[in-house]
């Protein structure tokens, strides 16, 4: 049984990035579920009920934005973050579900501690509830 406050779901089609981020987050004590496609993640997100979901933007099937909008219906308590290589302005739909510019992390992240800082903040709020 994992503490869902410390659970993170990661979607990125790049295996190296998945491995990196997973390793880092695990070292920080998080449980990480990682998927290469939005479709897989979408099937499982409700059951996992993570505190935080980190998604890439350019994914092979479903686009990151569409994924987040759908995932948010399945797992409304989850906070969503974007980890993307593209300079990106948040759409109105994503703003409507509460995302802000501070939720976008541009690749390459030199230092994953910034991402962890954000996740820790979110997890603390969720853990406190």
């Amino acid at each position, binding site marked *: 049984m994992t503490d869902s406050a410390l659970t993170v779901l990661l979607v990125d089609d*790049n295996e190296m990035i998945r491995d*990196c981020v997973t390793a880092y987050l695990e*070292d920080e004590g998080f449980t990480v579920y990682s998927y290469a496609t939005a479709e897989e993640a979408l099937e499982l997100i409700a059951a996992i009920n993570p505190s935080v979901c980190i998604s890439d933007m350019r994914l092979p099937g479903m686009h990151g934005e569409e994924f987040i909008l759908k995932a948010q219906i399945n797992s409304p308590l989850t906070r969503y973050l974007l980890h993307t*290589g593209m300079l990106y302005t948040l759409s109105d739909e994503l703003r409507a579900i509460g995302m802000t510019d501070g939720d976008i992390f541009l*690749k*390459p992240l*030199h230092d994953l501690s910034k991402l962890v800082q954000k996740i820790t903040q979110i997890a603390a709020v969720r853990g406190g509830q």
Partner: protein
Amino acid sequence: MVQKATETFFKSESRYRMLVENSCDIIFSLDFEGRFVYVSPAWKNILGHELSEVVGHNFREFVDPEDIPRCEDAFMAVIRSNAMQEMTYRVQHADGSWRRHTTRVNRHRDENGVKTIFGTTHDVTERFLFEELISRTEKMAMISGMAAGMAHEINNPLGAILQHAQNIERRVSADIPANVQAAAEVGVNLDLVRAYMQKRGILDFISHIRSAGMKASEIITNMLQFSRRSDAGAEYVNLSTFLDKVLELAGSDYDMKKKYGFRRIELQRLYAADLPPILLSVSGMEQVLLNILSNAAQALADGEPSQQPRIIVRTRLAKGMALIDIEDNGPGIDEQTRRRIFEPFFTTKKIGVGTGLGLSVAYEIVTKGHRGMIAVRSKPGKGSCFTIKLPLQETA
């Protein structure tokens, strides 16, 4: 009969003279030494000299020294082979400015056997400048697209390199309980593993991978500026206040202070009082100005030590545009550098010192992000002046 023929001859000679003297192009003849025997009045219209200042003088007095060999080659060829030659070269106007001329020359032998070179000259300065502008714009667009594409492709592997290096550093640290546990499971002491890595320089190697990766990432971030529309976060600013803030930023920058002695530089602020608020992307324009200031400071650091280094920051209004001049009294920029100064990856700095991206990003930010213009004037030995022109917005 003879009188009739003579009359006809004079009539036709005056007609020829009329044609030559009213030609818009310059018609001339030279002796084999290169001295003008005749020039048509168009010379005065195009180049400003009195004809008496030209006839009897050598063409070498007017042509850019760099282009003289090209002209000499063409003259030699026409003398040898009598085949028409064409050349384009720079020639100095009476007011000191340079014009670009295309000339076709041929050889003539008169009835007494005296040989001359004759030619017609067309002024192609405007066309040349226009073509240069078009080719520069096309080149910039092409390189920008390529740079942005490359940056995107490199981003993911670069991110992986940086993050994996970070993970390696962390996984040999005794601060993370999972590391200690895993080490115990395989029966090694983590402190000893770490000591070994330290002794063999492995930890340094990893940290070098990280710092080199960071440097590459900085370049990539700059390259991505090409595809970025910097209109996000545009706001109306008072240009004088804004420039004061940028100068303060420049003064507190580490490199500017330590490497280029920014504090030593005398700053003159000549701000126009009548400027309306200007719509700017504050961070974008900051980047542009800091880049120009840092280049100026570097140039001044390399300049004549006896001279008080000075930067003038001037604002003015002209033709519906707000102008910002940044002028230094450094060693200046030669013409070849000046022409390529806004090209991506063009740098005069040593390998590893500059990326050649600073001013090309500045160019993109000013032209694409602000629909403005940026240009540089310079006289070697006298300093350089960058001018940014920004359109004035109609405020409601």
